[in-house]
């Protein structure tokens, strides 16, 4: 074995293990380090064998937890040794001791490269192992994973264009080891951009079928009788990155496999076999949820999960709870999940904190008005016995649920007071401030709250927070209790005053205020009470704490002013409604407490005091038809009107903290976005875009100036990956894909459209290991769309993906485009981009086939303008008629072939949905000139003049500026041939180099 013969090392290890205590061990290690150090210094006498031995010693010492700050050079130099034993040790030790930021690694780069391109297969492996942290399969799988590593580390360095074909080929691999590695690579690639890899989808399904049916799986790749559970899991993971599976055959085979997994997984005695089969099962569950399978399969999943959360085996129970939480996102199963409430509550009392966390999360996620009382009461009960690590989270969650779902406000007050009573240390000030706000704003609640506070004050020992909140409530509303026994002002005063010696100096000012209030309420003045309180004020007039002193002096002076006192100390005015700081806080905390993003998402959806920029009517109620002219020639007056309206709006809904108070006037923007002239290349415009995000009171000039910045222009130092315009164009004809990407973030979109409504989910994915801060997303909607974006979290944790659903309602026909103003901060870079959202007119179309009998009467009945408009379009991009038909179909205008007797013409039909028009049939006819493909005659007809006009313009835009990128045939793979990569590529591009090995 490798170590036989290294006697020195064995002796050293045995010495260490014989050490009686830490001190002895340290002495022995120090001695050895000294020894090694001297040896290294005196390099002449060091044979490779000795070097190797000392480097091993260093590694051992390092493993013991001691700092080894020398000898790195020796370790690295071993890498370039010609012989295998030295080289191997060099690689292992270097990989352990040094991380990628270490300077010495630079010394090794050249050797590593030489090893990779060298002839020696074993050296290749060593080098590859090292980079990430051939009997060809051996090298290929290492190469695949190294590529993965490089790709993760720096996606820009690795040129992934044209990999799709290579990946598809790789998936045909029979060797399951290579396939496992390739699948990991595929998962990383599709997670970034699934579009390019559609061709891999059927192959993944095939692989899964092969494994699930145990066909052609060598014995060595089965694990406890299960064909490689790892590969199965990875394959299903890859499939989850495709938004849907369109091909019905592939879909059917996949569902067959999934069904087999769901039904065929039994619990057996052998725990390892169980683990393996359930690893596959849980991944299958996730895939089923993702694919939004038929109802029947979904309820099967819920039933399975219901079974899991009741079993004793802790791992399965944990995963059951975790996946049930994910399931909450799937619609329609909430009620079934609620049936398991009792079981979940049992898990809240489990001895295992991991399980309790999951149970708490699930309860938190499934809570709504119907079960809030039960759930919150359970949480409160559990609070008294919970360990410290969970108390803060528990109390915060209880407070939030109580606030969000309180069936009545008195219950809310009860809950919070109980919370303070049981876990005062963990109830932050925010929570009791919130109670005070609620009580102040709800008059009905005031006597009840005061009475409750009075009850708690009777308890012998209460938490200081309780003293604060009770004192405040009694001071404000204590007089409402006047007629109850034991609640005269004097009694109230004395019971509060009893607590004064027990509290800290931060509470005393509150108590002083309470006294002043009591004094004010005592009408006519009770001299005895007055004297008592004055004495207290007197006493604190010389207090060392400035706040207390000031209050004492001021209250004392005020209380001698008689009637003026009444005005100044009168009841506090109502608080303005504002976003719960609790919920905001919860969002912050969730980053730490390992929350599911799903839960977060749900929480956000439900609070829904997110920014609602709705209903920006055209100024002065201008009817939609005249709006057309507005679009063309924006007058300054309407601009100003909008401006004012916007301001009013944002002030009204009061979420000033997150909403840009002055979105640029919608029409002006719409005007800029509507026409085709926005294909501007990203330029280094020096427009100060921060204006938009910064000041609450932006100068009108600045607003106007920013409004005319064409979308797509960037002032950022961070450059987007790929063309924003092309991505947008592609998304206009599809429902999912990437909207924007730069080195830090990727914004994906998945949309569903149903009649005049749409739901668009923004996937904000942080690509880095650092959080993205100050994330802001503001929607600048055109006037015809009603958009509702749920609150975007301010921080996106490392490598996390946040989903922000956006509800869209189409009010009336218009081809204006909504704009997402997105900004975030990474390190010191403030990145801001304005992105058009692909909620274009065609999304609200529903193709409808019409027969000749239906078409012609309709066509004739809609005669002439404004319902039928005709225009000769010139400068059309020349294309064959078939392509044009495809283009129409992709825009959801259904081409009916053969309807028009002239083969050079096209006839298309569709239904347009909006709130104002409802469902409206639209017909279009294109007459092309075979002699001149650059011009054609376009006729559009519908029952609504605006719709006809807008649709005609929309089609025109599409015909004139057809995006080349999305429709061009996939570019030929530029990567070198797999068998003989050119030498130039080898030396320059590490990605190509590794790809060559694949």
């Amino acid at each position, binding site marked *: 074995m490798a170590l036989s013969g290294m006697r020195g090392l064995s002796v050293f290890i045995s010495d260490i293990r014989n050490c009686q205590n830490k001190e002895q061990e340290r002495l022995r290690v120090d001695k050895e380090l000294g020894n090694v150090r001297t040896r290294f210094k005196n390099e002449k006498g060091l044979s490779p064998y000795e070097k190797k031995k000392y480097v091993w010693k260093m590694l051992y010492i390092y493993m*013991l937890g001691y700092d080894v700050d020398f000898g790195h050079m020796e370790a690295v130099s071993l890498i370039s040794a010609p012989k295998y034993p030295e080289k191997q040790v060099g690689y292992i030790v270097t990989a352990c001791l040094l991380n990628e930021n270490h300077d010495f690694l630079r010394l090794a780069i050249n050797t590593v490269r030489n090893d990779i391109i060298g002839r020696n297969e074993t050296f290749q492996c060593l080098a590859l192992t090292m980079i990430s942290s051939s009997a060809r399969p051996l090298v290929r799988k290492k190469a695949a994973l190294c590529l993965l590593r490089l790709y993760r580390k720096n996606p820009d360095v690795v040129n992934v264009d044209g990999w799709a074909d290579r990946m598809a080929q790789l998936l045909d691999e029979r060797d399951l080891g290579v396939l496992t590695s390739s699948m990991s690579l595929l998962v990383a690639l599709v997670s970034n951009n699934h579009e390019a890899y559609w061709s891999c989808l059927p192959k993944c399904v095939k692989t899964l079928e092969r494994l699930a049916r145990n066909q052609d799986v060598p014995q060595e790749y089965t694990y406890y009788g299960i064909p490689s559970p790892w590969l199965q899991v990875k394959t299903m993971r890859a499939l989850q990155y495709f938004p849907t599976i369109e091909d019905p055959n592939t879909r059917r085979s996949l569902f067959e496999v999934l069904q087999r997994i769901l039904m065929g997984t039994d619990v057996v005695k052998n725990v390892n076999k169980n683990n393996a089969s359930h690893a596959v099962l849980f991944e299958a569950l996730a895939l089923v949820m993702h694919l939004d399978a038929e109802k029947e399969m979904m309820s099967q999943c819920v039933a399975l999960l219901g079974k899991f959360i009741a079993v004793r085996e802790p791992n399965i129970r944990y995963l059951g709870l975790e996946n049930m939480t994910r399931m909450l996102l799937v619609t329609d199963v909430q009620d079934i999940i609620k049936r398991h409430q009792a079981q979940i509550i049992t898990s809240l009392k489990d001895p295992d904190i991991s399980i309790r966390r999951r149970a708490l999360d699930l309860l938190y996620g499934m809570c709504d008005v119907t079960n809030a009382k039960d759930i919150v009461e359970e949480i409160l009960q559990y609070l008294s016995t919970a360990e410290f690590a969970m108390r803060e989270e528990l109390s915060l969650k209880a407070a939030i649920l109580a606030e969000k779902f309180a069936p009545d406000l008195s219950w809310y007050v009860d809950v919070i007071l109980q919370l303070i009573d049981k876990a005062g240390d963990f109830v932050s000030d925010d929570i009791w401030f919130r109670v005070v706000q609620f009580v102040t704003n709800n008059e009905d609640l005031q006597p009840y709250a005061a009475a409750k506070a009075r009850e708690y004050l009777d308890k012998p020992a209460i938490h200081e927070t309780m003293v604060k909140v009770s004192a405040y409530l009694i001071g404000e509303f204590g007089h409402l209790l006047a007629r109850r026994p034991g609640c005269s002002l004097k009694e109230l005063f004395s019971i509060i005053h009893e607590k004064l010696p027990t509290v800290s100096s931060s509470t005393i000012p509150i108590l002083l205020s309470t006294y002043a209030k009591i004094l004010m309420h005592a009408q006519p003045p009770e001299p005895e009470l007055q004297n008592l309180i004055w004495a207290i004020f007197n006493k604190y007039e010389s207090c060392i704490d400035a706040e207390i002193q000031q209050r004492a002096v001021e209250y004392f002076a005020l209380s001698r002013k008689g009637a003026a006192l009444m005005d100044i100390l009168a009841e506090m005015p109502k608080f303005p409604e504002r976003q719960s700081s609790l919920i905001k806080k919860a969002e912050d905390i969730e980053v730490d407490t*390992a929350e599911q993003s799903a839960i977060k998402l749900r929480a956000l959806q439900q609070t829904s005091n997110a920014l609602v920029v709705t209903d920006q009517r055209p100024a002065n109620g201008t009817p939609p038809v005249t709006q057309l002219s507005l679009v063309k020639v924006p007058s300054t007056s309407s601009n100003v009107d909008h401006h004012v309206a916007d301001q009013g709006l944002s002030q009204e809904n009061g979420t000033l903290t997150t909403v840009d108070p002055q979105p640029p006037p919608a029409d002006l923007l719409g005007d800029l976005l509507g026409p085709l002239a926005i294909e501007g290349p990203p330029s280094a415009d020096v427009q100060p875009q921060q204006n938009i995000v910064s000041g609450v009171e932006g100068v009108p000039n600045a607003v106007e100036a920013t409004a005319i910045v064409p979308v797509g222009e960037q002032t950022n130092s961070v450059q987007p990956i790929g063309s924003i315009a092309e991505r947008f164009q592609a998304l206009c004809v599809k429902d999912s894909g990437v909207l924007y990407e730069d080195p830090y973030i990727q914004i994906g979109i998945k949309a569903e459209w149903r009649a005049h409504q749409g739901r668009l989910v923004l996937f904000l994915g942080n690509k880095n290991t650092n959080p993205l801060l100050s994330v802001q997303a503001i929607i600048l909607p055109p006037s015809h769309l009603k958009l509702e974006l749920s609150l975007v979290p301010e921080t996106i944790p490392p490598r996390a993906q946040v989903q922000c659903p956006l509800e869209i309602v189409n009010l009336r026909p218009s081809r204006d485009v909504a704009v997402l103003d997105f900004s975030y901060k990474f390190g010191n870079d403030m990145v801001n981009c304005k992105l058009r959202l692909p909620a274009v007119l065609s999304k609200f179309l529903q193709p409808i086939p019409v027969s000749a009998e239906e078409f012609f009467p309709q066509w004739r009945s809609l005669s002439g303008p404004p319902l039928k408009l005709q225009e000769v379009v010139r400068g059309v991009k020349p294309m064959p008629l078939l392509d044009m038909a495809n283009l129409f179909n992709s825009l959801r205008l259904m081409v009916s072939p053969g309807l028009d007797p002239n083969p050079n013409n096209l006839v298309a039909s569709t239904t347009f949905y909006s709130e104002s028009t409802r469902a409206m049939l639209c017909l279009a006819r294109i007459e092309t000139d075979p002699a001149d493909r650059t011009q054609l005659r376009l006729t559009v007809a519908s029952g609504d003049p605006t719709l006809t006009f807008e649709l005609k313009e929309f089609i025109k835009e599409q015909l004139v500026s057809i995006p080349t990128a999305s429709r061009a045939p996939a570019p030929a793979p530029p990567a070198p041939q797999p068998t003989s990569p050119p030498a130039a590529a080898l030396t320059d591009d590490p990605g190509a180099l590794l790809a060559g090995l694949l």
Partner: protein
Amino acid sequence: MIHFVILNNRQGKVRLTKWYSTYSQKERSKVIRELTGIILSRGPKLCNFVEWRGLKVVYKRYAGLYFSMCIDQDDNELETLDIIHHYVEMLDRYFLNVCELDLIYNFHKVSLFVILAYYILDELLLAGELQESSRRTIARLVAAQDSLVETAREQASLLGDLVKQAM
């Protein structure tokens, strides 16, 4: 992906670490300290998952040794548990019973163990992902590496003998 692998004994002494994500030396010691503390304090009948700083640690105890792997939050936990068990089974092929290894005071074997554990781990995982799941293939690769070392050593001693003879 797997961010790191830690192997420690019941006393919290670390036997093996492997990092697939970048952590500075300071962070590494902190992670080890924190995690061994959490894991050692967990009772025997609890689940094998610990949520930790937005990540998940899947661990399993085999007699005196704890094997932990840290994964992303939405990775498959059981899959990782399978990897751990698979790894342990492979180690078991070389040592009669890995888990008892720490108890018996066989220092020679322990040092051997650490080195071999690295060999095997490097064939099992790469870049934080499973590289090869076939036990036979891994065994073959490790043996091949080992024999390379042996041959080189024999050659060296042969050379040494020759030199001695010549003198």
